[in-house]
């Protein structure tokens, strides 16, 4: 309930920048880390300083270290990025919401369509609609960043009806979508990341989902399971 009273535009902007930086990082892929890492480091520092969280600072230090690395190291990170998120091998952490939240752990699941409907509420659609799942992490992050930017604008315009609208949209989207799977996704990444950059990235994703809590009325429940987790657990009882 304390969303926009407590969050000055500057803080919202910082959040939005982090969301966008992450969105770009996933959208541009492992091949463009040399361009997408620095903005992430920058926005991450701003957030870490604002909240003064040491874990985030530490993670960001690793990010910063690798954002100034050589081409060889960038290539190694690119390979790891693809192994984790892209393929052509079965990716370890496919960056799509429905893989984590739908009961069948496939892409284009119910969440994908629900997310599509969310975008439509703002008369938006994904550029790759029907080709790329709408619940691709970058698209969801961009949408959240967009909502924050709308909040800032409407706050500036003192349009309280609109502020309320975007605030609600933001909270709903976070609680029904991004907030539900971001931690599981991050956990999956950290479980099998072979390069410190991605452990750090996972840490930032966790921080992001936690830091967004003050922006929300309450933290989203994380009672969801990654496919790896639920596939492992048995459905049989003791008998």
């Amino acid at each position, binding site marked *: 309930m304390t969303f926009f009273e407590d969050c000055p535009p500057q803080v919202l902007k910082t959040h939005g920048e982090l969301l966008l930086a992450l969105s770009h990082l996933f959208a541009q892929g492992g091949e463009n880390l040399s361009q997408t890492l620095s903005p992430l480091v920058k926005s991450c520092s701003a957030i870490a300083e604002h909240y003064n969280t040491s874990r985030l600072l530490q993670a960001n230090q690793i990010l910063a270290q690798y954002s100034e690395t050589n081409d060889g190291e960038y290539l190694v990170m690119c390979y790891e990025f693809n192994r984790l998120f892209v393929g052509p091998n079965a990716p370890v952490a496919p960056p799509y919401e429905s893989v984590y939240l739908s009961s069948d752990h496939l892409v284009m699941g119910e969440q994908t369509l629900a997310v599509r409907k969310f975008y439509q509420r703002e008369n938006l659609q994904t550029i790759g609609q029907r080709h790329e799942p709408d619940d691709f992490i970058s698209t969801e992050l961009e949408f959240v960043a967009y909502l924050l930017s709308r909040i800032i604008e409407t706050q500036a315009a003192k349009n309280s009806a609109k502020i309320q609208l975007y605030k609600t949209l933001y909270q709903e989207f976070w609680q029904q979508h991004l907030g539900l799977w971001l931690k599981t996704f991050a956990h999956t990444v950290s479980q099998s990341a072979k390069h410190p950059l991605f452990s750090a990235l996972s840490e930032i994703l966790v921080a992001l989902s936690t830091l967004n809590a003050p922006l929300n009325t309450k933290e989203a429940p994380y009672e969801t399971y990654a496919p790896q987790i639920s596939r492992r657990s048995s459905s049989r009882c*003791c*008998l």
Partner: protein
Amino acid sequence: MGDWEWPLILFTVLGQIAIGIILMLWWLARNRNLNIQLFKRGVHVSGGLLLIALLASLFHLGHPEAAYRALAHLGSSWLSREILFFLLTFLAWIYLFRLSRQQTSSHTLGSGASIITTAETAAGGQPTSNLSLGLGITSLLGLLGIASSAMIYVLPRVPAWNNGGPVLFFLLTTGLLGALCTLVLGGNLLQTAQKKLLLQVSLGCTIFSLILSVIYGSMLSASMEGAASLNYHLSSPLFWVRALVSWLAPLLLLVIILKSPDLGKKNLILTVTLLVGLGEILGRALFYLSATGIQITALF
């Protein structure tokens, strides 16, 4: 057994201790001999245990937030009945708690006043029947709750459970741990006769439990699944630990205590109680672990 049975082990054992204590208090109160301090202590401890037990029970549910719905099927579900009786027991306990509070407010008994006194004096004119009635009703509801708990496991699918075993074992646990815990709680507040009585109850329960287990075990081999349960027990080191800590050691120690002039040292009683408690938890774990259900035995 998966992780999800731990809440059940905790719930059943703690719940049974709680009700066992109240049962013993009731028994002690029957000839107006209950020390008021012990009453209070007993009510508080049993209430705490009951609360932990009830909370623990929530965690074996996939959706604890919807636990209230479990009351919906009193017609045939023993789980519904269990919940009902435990809730009623808890309500009755609240009444006991109120009684214990009233006494505090009207009569401040210093620790030095731990003279053996009758409940009537302690209650300062309040009718002891209230107290006795409260303990009685709570015990009765609690016992019904425990019996219902046990009936949940009386499943035609599980031959090892599909008999009087669960009910008897659950009730024996109640008696045994109830008596022992009351002894521990009571300490010097208990009269020697009361102590003796509680020790005898403990010994009786232990002997009965041992005999019953032998009979029960021999019955099990009648069905394939029962035999599997029995085999599981006999080949599990856990079972032999349980046999040691909850039958052999208590038997030995209880006899020693009963024979000693001052009915044993406090520490010895505490030791027996802890051993039996551990044994009962092991026993409960084995109860779940060993259960073999009738099932499809075809390949794959």
